């Protein structure tokens, strides 16, 4: 199997949230990123953070279905991490101004912008979810996050039948909708 095909398989795995693929990418790339961040005014915790964010960017790309890797996965991850880290340094006003242009990188601006948008959405949803209160939160979490079926949910939550649980779920969803759009408007 060629290198390129292997990487394609790994990315497909990533889109499926496959542990082994994630682990493989971590093993192959994390040490390089940690070294980069340590050499550029960062620490190991920050390296982990940045790498995790890059993994999310990769996941977003891979799960979008239109992602075609036109460079080595290593190069792509390095480019994303580098971009993210420089951005972080600027935010922390720790940017030392040293940018080694000798590095082999690919443009990742668009990906990172898209990622930031999604990240904001994620945070808004997280906030909205945290505000709808129980049992709505657990109910929606069970149905939409954990993808449990309505019968099980009704049983777990003590509803007499799945239809009652379903009605309750929709009521909760309406509340979530209000909170979510209120926050989207506030955020904009």
């Amino acid at each position, binding site marked *: 199997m060629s290198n390129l095909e292997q990487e394609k398989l790994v990315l497909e795995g990533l889109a499926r*949230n496959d542990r082994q693929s994630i682990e493989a990418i971590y093993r192959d790339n994390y040490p390089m990123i940690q070294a980069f961040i340590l050499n550029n005014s960062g620490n*190991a915790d920050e390296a982990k953070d940045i790498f995790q964010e890059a993994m999310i960017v990769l996941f977003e790309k891979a799960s979008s279905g239109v992602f075609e890797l036109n460079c080595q996965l290593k190069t792509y991850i390095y480019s994303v991490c580098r971009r993210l880290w420089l951005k972080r340094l600027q935010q922390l006003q720790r940017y030392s101004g040293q940018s080694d242009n000798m590095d082999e990188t690919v443009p990742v601006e668009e990906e990172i912008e898209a990622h930031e948008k999604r990240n904001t959405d994620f945070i808004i949803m997280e906030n909205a*979810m945290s505000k709808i209160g129980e049992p709505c939160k657990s109910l929606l979490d069970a149905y*939409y996050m954990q993808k449990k079926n309505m019968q099980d949910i009704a049983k777990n939550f003590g509803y007499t039948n799945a239809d009652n649980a379903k009605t309750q779920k929709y009521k909760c969803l309406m509340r979530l909708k209000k909170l979510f759009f209120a926050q989207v408007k506030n955020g904009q």
Partner: protein
Amino acid sequence: MDDILLLQAVERYMKGEMSAQEKAFFEELRKSNPEIDQAAVEHTFLLNQLDKHAETKAYKHSLYEVAAKLTAEGVMSESPLKGKAKVVSFWKKYKRNIAVAACIAGLMSITTAGLIIAYTQKVNQSNKEDLIGKIQNTNRELDKLNNKLQSGPATNPVLPQNPDYRATGFLIDGKGYLVTNAHVVNRLKSVYVENARGEYFKAVSVFADNNSDLAILKITDTAFKTVLNLPYSIRKNNLDLAEQIFTLGFPRNEIVYGEGYLSAKSGNDGDSTAYQLTVSVNPGNSGGPVLNKNGEVIGIITSKEKNADGVVYAAKSMNIFKLLDAIKKMDDTQTIKLPNNSGLKGLDRPQQVKKMEDFVFMVVGN
């Protein structure tokens, strides 16, 4: 249409759970009713967001677990790198700043230290200027020539070498004991005293006290004739503020009279063993007696403030008694008897000066 029903419909529509008939009806409803269409779009968006959210959350959960596992395995070596990395990064980040800061700090401390040293030296020099005078030898040669011309063949012992410094001293005991400044004695290797008549005598330092800046000289020259009565006395008590004082000294090769008043009961920096006077003195006045109107020696000129006008310091006469006590302890054979009655009381100033000027000596040497 009820919102909840609509939500349900949108969800079923998205999941493809609707039958063809339902689907067609729903699409028709959206087309004909913009409000429902708008609500449907919002619901779709929310459900999509929820879906994405769920996906991302699950994925993040996987990432945490993988990271935890790899950290446990040591692939993501956390601890050994962490501490070191912080130090390295800090040093790397700030090494230029630190270097610059260190340079500035170094420069600053050197500059400050330099300034302090320079300033304190200045202060020391300027605060107290010892009033020992440097002699310009050409003048002295001339004076000598004049003296010879005036007094005919020389009767007095001639100085072996041209002296470099000049100060003042005065007799406190007719046997040949004089008081002068310690800084005078310290400066001179060989000491000669010369009276107003131009007679020279060899003298040695008996005792010098740097604290009060006083020294006792003894004339060792056999040519010196013991004086039976000194006209002035040495005062034991403090003088009052504003009392009139006068002094005699040798700021030049001739005795010079100066008049002033007591301006403070303590000397430089609150020194209680000295007075502050306002009187005109110059280099050469060092060791000169300061007398009050009754002809009592109340002090000995020591120094003056360089950067203030008319601020002169004089050691209090009481210090002389302390010096004599110290000498007594050191050497029993030296008995110095101080004059206790002033014969100048009630006289007017020119007569006072005339009576005592023979006992005020120029202290010279090199």
